[in-house]
């Protein structure tokens, strides 16, 4: 155990670990020191100065976010001097911020707004000086408004420390300081993987998703279009907190009802193709295990991870599952299978997805994602955009009666629902792979070892495979790209040194916590909240009659009627994809590194 330090904060004594900051020690006492740039999941950027405290014996105020505790310290967290300082500091920040609260996406969740409001600052004390810098709209996923940026540096820290993407940094100095990309080319021409974590950590509305709600409304209000919608597994658990319900409440029935009220013609569910993904990916895994293919197999559901892999680990592209993500499988199936079954002209179908994710917007726009003959997914909305549509439609979400989705592409199992939490895809895959290999179900479907918020999780299980004997399988799960990088470095090194890796199957999710912590999820979450959201999904799974993807009747039907069998030629044509090597400088494709669709089959 490390050394304990005794100190007094506001007259209360506390003992904390050496190295704890004053701000954290105060939080342990339940004292929340006002702050702006501080975020509990990030190393302090020490930008704003709002968290100043007085320490007896020290000449001036100290910043509590970055001052470590010392034995015998006597700290005062409030005084006339500190209040006056904090007010001036917030007034200064406001004087350099485009205060556009009524139209700002962060309105009501903005930490600057909260602080300014609570402290009763004088908005007019300083002259407003905001340079007219243009909004960076170069990215299909994330837009950045420098006029709202308060240069707190959180986005830079999350991008480098948690995601290890290093797409952005502070450039210039003094008043000219701003967050920018390499050569200031914009996020769309950078190594940004579109994960959107920067938007979730941004205290103001400077970083946001690219807004597509207008396009979706236009499609819905166009009588000539058939608008079909799918919703990702994690959406059903994160809507609740935006409508005054307890965090982690699953609101799937209300979600369908709201979509119908908004006017979507067909309301389906991405969970359906999550189960389909397991069938395809599970088959791919088994083929590789049996046929001596490249192992480990690495999941490809997370488009942020996929671009990260293409940028930093293109040598591991062959290890990455060729399966499209559930969103893209859904998109392809809507314009082929669904159109055929309902006898609809696919050209008139508008395929919309609601995702926890900003990278899904990028994924939908990847040029190769049009195997249906059309753009497989036309518009991608994040949870935040969907919430705005619900509010625009004046829907009282909390009291909506539950409704069911439409037939054909909405049935799902518990395995699909847990896709939304880190480890969920792994758990779902193990459940079905076990069945496919052993010919019987796992005794206990809850695989605890791959659940939870540990950065890298590992599990070893033995599958009594028919015809192969007991098959030991080691798997790993990583979430957050810095963890993914650590794991991939290890895999790369093992392959380099011995020609193979200890792992057979790896799940990677770009965002900490998995999709429940996605970059398109509600603003202002700390990582601990993401576990609460994940638990909601595990509860739904636990309560379902069918908890394994191969039990999904809709999936059985789609294979019977359309796809023949998992890994069939038509599956490979429609449900699988290829990867590219990307430039670290601007994110563009350098070359294709895996085989084209038609060649997958062999």
């Amino acid at each position: 155990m490390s050394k304990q330090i005794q100190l007094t904060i506001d007259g209360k004594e506390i003992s904390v670990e050496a190295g704890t900051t004053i701000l954290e020690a105060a939080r342990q006492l339940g004292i929340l020191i006002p702050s702006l740039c501080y975020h509990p999941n990030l190393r302090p950027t020490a930008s704003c100065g709002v968290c100043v405290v007085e320490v007896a014996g020290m000449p001036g105020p100290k910043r509590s976010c970055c001052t470590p505790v010392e034995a015998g310290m006597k700290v005062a967290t409030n005084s006339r001097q500190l209040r006056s300082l904090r007010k001036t500091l917030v007034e200064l920040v406001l004087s350099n911020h485009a205060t556009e609260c009524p139209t700002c996406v962060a309105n009501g969740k903005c930490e600057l707004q909260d602080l300014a409001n609570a402290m009763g600052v004088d908005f007019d004390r300083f002259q407003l000086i905001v340079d007219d810098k243009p909004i960076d709209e170069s990215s299909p996923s994330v837009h950045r408004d420098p006029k709202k940026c308060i240069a707190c540096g959180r986005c830079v820290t999350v991008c480098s420390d948690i995601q290890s993407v290093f797409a952005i940094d502070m450039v210039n100095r003094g008043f000219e300081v701003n967050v920018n990309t390499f050569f200031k080319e914009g996020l769309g021409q950078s190594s940004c993987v579109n994960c959107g974590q920067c938007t979730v950590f941004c205290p103001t509305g400077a970083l946001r998703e690219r807004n597509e709600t207008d396009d979706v409304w236009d499609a819905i209000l166009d009588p000539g279009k058939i608008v079909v919608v799918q919703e990702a597994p994690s959406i059903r658990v994160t809507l609740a907190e935006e409508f005054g319900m307890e965090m982690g409440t699953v609101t799937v029935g209300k979600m369908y009802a709201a979509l119908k009220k908004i006017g979507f013609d067909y309301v389906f569910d991405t969970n359906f193709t999550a189960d389909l993904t397991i069938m395809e990916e599970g088959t791919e895994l088994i083929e590789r295990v049996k046929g001596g293919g490249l192992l480990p197999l690495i999941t490809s559901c997370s488009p942020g991870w996929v671009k990260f892999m293409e940028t930093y680990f293109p040598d591991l592209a062959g290890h990455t599952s060729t399966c499209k993500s559930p969103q893209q499988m859904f998109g392809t199936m809507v314009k082929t299978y669904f159109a055929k079954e309902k006898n609809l002209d696919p050209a008139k179908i508008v395929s919309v997805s609601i995702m926890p994710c900003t990278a899904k917007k990028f994924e939908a726009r990847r040029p190769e994602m049009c195997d249906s003959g059309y753009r497989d997914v036309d518009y991608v909305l994040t949870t935040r955009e969907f919430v705005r549509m619900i509010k625009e439609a004046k829907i009282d979400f909390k009291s909506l009666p539950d409704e069911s989705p439409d037939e054909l592409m909405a049935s799902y199992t518990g395995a699909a629902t847990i896709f939304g939490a880190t480890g969920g895809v792994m758990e779902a895959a193990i459940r079905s792979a076990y069945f496919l290999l052993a010919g019987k179900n796992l005794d206990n479907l809850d695989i605890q070892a791959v659940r939870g918020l540990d950065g890298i999780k590992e599990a070893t299980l033995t599958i009594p495979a028919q015809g192969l004997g007991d098959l030991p399988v080691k798997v790993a799960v990583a979430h957050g790209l810095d963890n993914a990088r650590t794991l991939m470095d290890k895999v790369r090194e093992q392959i380099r040194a011995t020609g193979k890796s200890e792992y057979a199957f790896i799940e990677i999710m770009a965002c900490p916590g998995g999709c429940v912590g996605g970059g398109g999820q509600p603003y202002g979450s700390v990582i601990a909240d993401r576990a609460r959201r994940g638990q909601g999904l595990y509860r739904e799974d636990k309560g379902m009659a069918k908890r394994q993807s191969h039990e999904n009747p809709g999936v059985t039907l789609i294979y019977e009627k359309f796809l023949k069998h998992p890994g069939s030629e038509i599956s490979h044509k429609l449900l699988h994809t290829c990867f590219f090597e990307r430039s670290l400088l601007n994110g563009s494709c350098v070359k294709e590194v895996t085989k084209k669709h038609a060649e997958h089959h062999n």
Partner: protein
Amino acid sequence: MSIYRTHILLPIDEGTVLAGVFEVKRRLENELKTRKLDKEIKVLESGTVGLVGKGVILTVYPDRMYYFQVKENDVARIIDEHLLKGRVVAGLAHAPVADMATAATAEKSAKVGLTREQRRVVLDKTWTVDPQNINEVLAAGGYRALEKILGDSLSPEQVIEEVKKSGLRGRGGAGFPTGMKWEFTRKAQSSAGRTATGTEKYIICNADEGEPGTFKDRLILEGDPHKLIEAMTIAAYAIGAGRGYVYIRGEYELSIERMQAAIDQAREFNLLGANILETDFSFDLQIKKGAGAYVCGEETALIESLEGKRGNPRVKPPYPVSHGLWQKPTAVNNVETLANIPAIISNGAGWFRNIGTDKCPGTKVFTILGHVEYPGLIETDMGTSLREIIFSFGGGIKGGKKFKAALLGGAAGVFLPEPLLDVKMDFESLKENKAVLGSGAVLVMNEDTSIVDMLFSIAKFFAHESCGQCSPCRIGTQQILQIIYRIRQGKGLPGDPETMLNLAETMFKSSLCPLGQSLIMPIKSALEHFPEEFKVNNNNEVNP
């Protein structure tokens, strides 16, 4: 070796180079050769004399005479009149050379400006020795202190003790006791829990001189780079470092060139590198060029920059003495601080303590500039009065005007008015008068100067140089600039001076590094001593 009857010294610094010193030198050498005088009279390059704006300066020895503003066409006349006929050239600006190194400053001298005697500890060799020739440096006593330490096998602790006893305080502005800094660095624990040694520690010379109006470090670097090498080697020996860096401001091209040449020569002479002077002690150093950010003069920003990162200051604590370059114990010392070390080791702490004041022993290098007769670089004892510096060394106010104020310590400095002219120039006395010694810059303003204009340019400087990491400094400097701008336009608003002061105080109390904490000084002193200049007209409208 030939004996010359006369030596002509040509001080090389960026001012004289621009004024054409090399053209003068070439003409001089050609003329001497033509007249077959080149065996009698030797032309030498030296470091700076410390004079600004006097063009090419030519010094004749042993006659101890300066000529200023020398042009190529004057060369023939100087040879004819002075070197052959032995009389001062009429019509050429000239002055006798004062005895710089040995003068007793305790005795009040009536002499002013150039003829004023100076006690030179730091600058003793800068203007008499060719810094590019290590043989000259060695002959003039260079590297004797290093030889003493390694030859007499003084322990690192003994060296630190001597520096502590000398009472030497950092000349970079903060005045922290150098011996203590070295002791902390020596005793700092490495992450493994044992005392870190060898390559796990670093000595850095802070030569990123960026304080406006200050150029003392440059002239030391240009004039006596070997002294710094010697001092850094001693420091490395004392703290247990195996490697050192000289972080030189990128614009100081001549400094970098000379320092590099000196490092190369020192390596050749086994004064740097492995087994220095055939002992077990090894040490080497290299130059890192700064990229032009004022904030990189702050030691933690400097270290970040040295590591190849954006030069933002670090959060302190921990301090560099325990977590410096690459998180290893590091001593960062200013150029002038280090330049005192060889003399302290050679002559002893007692000798050093006899110079200057009790709490601030030693000399201080000042740069005098602004409205004085003789702007330039001088060295004098700590505790010399401001009046003496301006009116004796500086030759008084130019053009017979009246003195209005002096800005001490550069942009991060303090305005002092006429009634405070007798303040003693040392850390303690200045502190008592709410002023700072800072970098040693003395910017003199005559009666025609507007304090508001001065403050405006200072605020502009700070706004430009803020690194932008802390919002109090990033936005605060900009708001202060706005306020001074409108006051300057005659459009100040009621309450503006108070708001400006409140902003500066907020920055002082909440900024991370000295840059943000400094603007309070010029603002507070300007408002205190010259409040009438900031009176705002209530009838005026806001400047759009």
